[in-house]
């Protein structure tokens, strides 16, 4: 899974029927120090996450599909958890990106 921050969402009227009724979130993947890591990705929401939340994104199709309850759908990423905290072994204090 990836750690990312939700920076927005998008509206699409014409889309795969399996994407209807699920939020499409714009997620910025993060490095362990909280800085941006690469390009934004789009993930369907499975846990009612919102803008500003730090989240766990699953990047494997079956997991993503079943997390949003849509089998055999063209879904390659889904938000499956809202992160409360991250602790790193070699740091005393928790990082807060």
């Amino acid at each position, binding site marked *: 899974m990836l750690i990312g921050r939700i920076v*927005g969402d998008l509206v699409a009227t*014409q889309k795969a029927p399996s994407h209807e009724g699920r939020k499409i979130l*714009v997620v910025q993947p993060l490095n362990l120090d909280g800085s941006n890591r690469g390009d934004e990705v789009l993930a369907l929401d499975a846990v009612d996450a919102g803008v500003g939340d730090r989240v766990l994104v699953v990047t494997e199709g079956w997991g993503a599909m079943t997390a949003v309850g849509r089998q*055999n*759908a063209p879904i390659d990423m889904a938000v499956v958890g809202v992160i409360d905290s991250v602790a790193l072994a070699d740091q005393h204090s928790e990082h807060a990106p």
Partner: protein
Amino acid sequence: MLLARVIGNVVSTVKNDTLTGKKILVLQPIDSAGKDRGEKLLALDSVGAGAAETVYYCRGREAGFPWYPDDVPVDATIVGIVDHVNVSRQ
């Protein structure tokens, strides 16, 4: 899934039977501000997308699922046409 803009199409007469009747489009990946990101790629269209439209596409094995239960040899498929992206920028 990732954001992209449709910048062209590909015509192929001789192709795998399972690709017959499917549109092949050229995509330029973009970020949420519309700026070009990374390498262009080819993707099948499952939603009737056209030139210059902003779309989002799915990668990997899942890219074949719009045609389920048919198996389609594809690794990227357009699965939605984007009306707008809501990202607040400071």
